[in-house]
């Protein structure tokens, strides 16, 4: 038992070292001095109040998408449709805000209703992916991909069509909402305590749900072995659907936050890859919800910090994505190698 723990640690550390080594090689190949580059990333992420602020702003939607994806992962589902679900959340929020902005409703209530609409929108879209799988036999990966395309098309239609800025037809998005409909931020910053609190709260709820409740355990059983779970009395398809709905709700909330707290309008690509990034993070933490917060924080930091690489060494802006994917790939490889090793010994 003790030996096994050491083996685990050795493999995990090995994977991280390997990831660091290959990133270093990549940096060298790109002509950037690696150590200065790492320092630049750190400084870029934590070096100033402004960058910390950006870091926290990007952290909260990532927390939400990761928490959402963890639920579907626990149920053994690859919810690739998470990007579209986030976009759908954003669309519903925008729709609600547009509907209510002309009324005499107090702005605070409008925002709350807008966010609730986003949650519903995300859940509906995820529920559709779930229904396609459960009742239509469409694998959730293909269903999700298809629904992502549909939601993108819908966003583009709305941005260029019914919700366009007067006289304008541009990808730049819809008319920004009045400042009264922005999520309140800390003075002199763009950081909304609301979005941060909501995301952290959602994550805590998910941690508790997955670790401490019958629901979480049954979900996990469905994920590990649906046949056994069914024989043990778990209504499997209902649990799969619930997992989709919950994930969609969280991801829809992330979309709602992007609309009310970050962009203040609807953009095509409003999900900005947060969904896929969430998938990466949840793979990296290997279903262990407690690690989501720090790992997501790390990813957000790499995202924000690596902007410096472009500034200082003219590295391509996609570099942070490459780094993150490399890390996940190697950690997953390390996990595979560990399991092989343990099976042999």
């Amino acid at each position, binding site marked *: 038992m003790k030996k096994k723990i050491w083996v685990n640690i050795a493999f995990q550390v090995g994977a991280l070292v390997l990831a660091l080594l290959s990133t270093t090689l990549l940096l060298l190949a790109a002509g950037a001095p690696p150590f200065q580059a790492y320092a630049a990333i750190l400084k*870029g992420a934590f070096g100033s109040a402004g960058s910390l602020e950006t870091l926290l702003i990007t952290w909260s939607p990532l927390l939400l998408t990761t928490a959402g994806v963890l639920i579907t992962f626990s149920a053994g589902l690859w919810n690739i449709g998470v990007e579209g679900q986030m976009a759908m959340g954003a669309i519903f929020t925008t729709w609600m805000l547009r509907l209510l902005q002309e009324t005499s409703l107090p702005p605070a209530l409008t925002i709350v209703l807008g966010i609730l609409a986003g949650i519903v929108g995300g859940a509906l879209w995820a529920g559709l992916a779930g229904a396609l799988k459960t009742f239509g036999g469409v694998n959730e990966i293909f269903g999700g991909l298809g629904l992502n395309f549909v939601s993108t098309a819908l966003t583009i239609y709305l941005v*260029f069509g019914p919700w366009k800025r007067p*006289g*304008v037809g*541009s990808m730049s998005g819809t008319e920004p909402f009045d400042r009264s409909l922005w999520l309140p931020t800390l003075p002199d910053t763009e950081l909304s305590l609301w979005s941060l609190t909501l995301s952290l709260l959602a994550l805590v709820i998910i941690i508790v749900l997955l670790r401490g409740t019958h629901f979480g355990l049954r979900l996990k059983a469905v994920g590990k072995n649906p046949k056994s779970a069914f024989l043990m009395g778990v209504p499997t398809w209902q649990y799969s659907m619930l997992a989709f709905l919950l994930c969609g709700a969280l991801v829809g909330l992330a979309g709602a936050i*992007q609309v009310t707290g970050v962009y203040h309008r609807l953009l095509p690509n409003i999900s900005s890859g947060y969904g896929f990034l969430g998938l990466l993070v949840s793979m990296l933490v290997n279903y262990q919800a407690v690690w989501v917060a720090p790992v997501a924080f790390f990813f957000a930091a790499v*995202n924000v910090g690596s*902007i*410096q690489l472009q500034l200082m060494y003219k590295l391509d*802006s996609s570099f942070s994505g490459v780094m993150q994917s490399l890390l996940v790939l190697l950690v997953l490889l390390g996990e595979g190698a560990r399991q092989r090793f343990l099976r042999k010994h």
Partner: protein
Amino acid sequence: MCKHLTRFTFLAVAAVLVLSACGGGGGSQLAPLGENLTFGMLLVGPANDHGWSQAHYEAGLYVEQNIPGATMIYLENVYSGSPAYTGTTTSQLAEQLVAQGAQLVIFNSDDMKDEATKFAQDHPDIPVIMASGDQVWQDGEAYIPMANMVNIMGRMEYGKMMAGCAAALTSQTGKIGYLGPLINDETRRLAASAYLGAKYCWTLAGNDPATLEFKVTWIGFWFNIPGFTSDPTQVADDFFNNGYDVVISGIDTTEAITEAKRLHDAGQAVWAIPYDFKGACDQAPDICLGVPYFNWGPAYLATIQAAVDGAFATDFQWLGPDWADINSPDTSAVGFVAGPALSAEDVVSLDAFIAELAGGLNLWTGPINLQDGTVYLGDGVVATDQEVWYLPQLLEGMEGQSVTE
């Protein structure tokens, strides 16, 4: 263990919040930036796009050459929802430039307009240049007083008229395509200017103006974003395959000439006119009739020099060509280089047209009707700057969407 971790995370977050809350500073008047200036630039596309962004990037290099000790830092591909910067807004990226030492920030795209305003308002002590914007135009429709912002735009209407003229002189079918980016005031007036230039030269060459076909197709953004915009290569291809033998590009990138070259190499008689960047013809000289381009260098140099000297003042600059030499790198904000594919005879006609413009010819003179037939400028009425800038529709005689449906 996990409980502790969660609690720690909360505490850390709280601490960070307090810190960042204290971080924002109160503003002061614009002080001289002094020696060893660092200025930042946000580019909507890549710095080597042979178009809009490269023109800005090279202007930055021009400033570096002309102000001793000046350094440019820049970020590419900055636009709403750019996958390069997951979830970060443009104003946050501007903050990053500042964190890296930028004392002045240039926003190079209309897409950044709201964010530039937000950034300028949040940082009244930092001089901001917003290219193509009209926020600080006192006589504009969207005036927002900001002491630390300067708007700069070239009078590309002239460049587009020249492009339109070259296209009309060359076209054998009398069908000209205009590859439009997104739809807004700027893009409408530029497409309209190209049409006015084309119509003028078409008529001058002895043709009936009614036989000129001029069609605008918009892709939805300044450049191609696969999956989100229409594919400009496809749009150009559709033009060429439907009898439009000249395509004028209004987008930031060079798909029109690339596609024209492909068809030219396959034996089709087609031409194209790129946009934005002086060297854009180099990619496909065989079919390039010329390029109307921006020369941001002189204006940027003057404005940044003023900031260095402590003389930066809010201003709306809408700068025309230097008619003495429209291609002077140090004085002309807008220029036109005739391309190798423009015949010698047409070069003479085009030069004559340019000379007329230099002599005071204004094609924005009535009668001009809007696309829906309403009178925009009565007979002999000359358009005001506002009427040109805020053109509400395409013009009568042009085909294509004025606004999105």
